[in-house]
């Protein structure tokens, strides 16, 4: 299968490398920062106004790709919940000597609980490693989207983008 988002639904390595929403390795090592994997020119800009720090810029051309200013980004995570494409995560490679955190949007039931062990999954939905849930945030400002934070070995921080959906319990259907 050819690579690239139009063939797989997953941005290729090249597409990510050329994507202006991805922070530098050094910035990720310093602490929480948004990773905006938006590689197609679609008319959409809620991330720009979601950011209170002016760290995301799209500009007049609505289809321009969001450009991240890693210096201004505080990793607050509001953009994670407000991106209609669910294309933003927060990565923190400074979490511990060996571990990083990945915060991602999650719109399924049931939600995991803090401290639970879940399967961390890749962009292709494959299990990468077990992960511990650090936080589950649900704010009215998120408009129905939950943001889940998990910790994973730093070697997997660029690969993990979500968790496996949990089996629905009787009472959730």
């Amino acid at each position: 299968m050819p690579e690239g988002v139009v063939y797989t639904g997953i941005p290729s390595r090249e597409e990510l490398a050329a994507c202006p929403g991805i922070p530098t390795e050094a910035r990720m090592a310093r602490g929480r920062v948004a990773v905006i994997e938006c590689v197609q020119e679609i008319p959409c800009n809620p991330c720009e106004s979601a950011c209170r720090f002016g760290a995301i810029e799209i500009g007049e051309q609505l289809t321009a790709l969001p450009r991240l200013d890693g210096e201004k980004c505080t990793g607050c995570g509001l953009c994670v919940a407000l991106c209609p494409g669910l294309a933003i995560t927060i990565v923190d490679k400074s979490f511990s000597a060996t571990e990083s955190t990945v915060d991602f949007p999650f719109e399924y039931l049931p939600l995991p609980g803090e401290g639970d062990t879940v399967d961390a999954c890749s962009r292709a939905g494959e299990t990468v490693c077990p992960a511990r849930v650090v936080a589950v945030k649900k704010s009215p400002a998120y408009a129905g989207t939950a943001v889940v934070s998990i910790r994973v070995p730093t070697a997997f921080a660029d690969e993990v983008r979500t968790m496996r959906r949990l089996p629905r319990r009787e009472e959730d259907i």
Partner: protein
Amino acid sequence: MRVLHHPVLGDLTGQKTVTIYYGEEPVEAFEGEPVAAALLNAGIRVFRKTAKRREPRSVFCAIGRCTDCMMIVDGIPNTRTCVTAVRDGMRVQLQDGLAPVGIAPEAGGR
């Protein structure tokens, strides 16, 4: 099957229920919902059979256009069940082939 809990839409609570009848079988429905939704929820999928080949048909468009979901409702044939709201005690029958002609409407249907 009901979607009682939903990550975006929240929980369904406080729905009033009514009973409709599919043939003789009572089917619980939410007040105001389309007949087709109540039947699908109850696992009933065959709404009518075609006139020539007696093939089963069910909901296709759910917006009242395709007429695949027509049934006999309170005696009125060719009723589009996807846009007809349930009423307590409503009688719904499979429409087998062409509906009989000349049935007097017993109650206001569509």
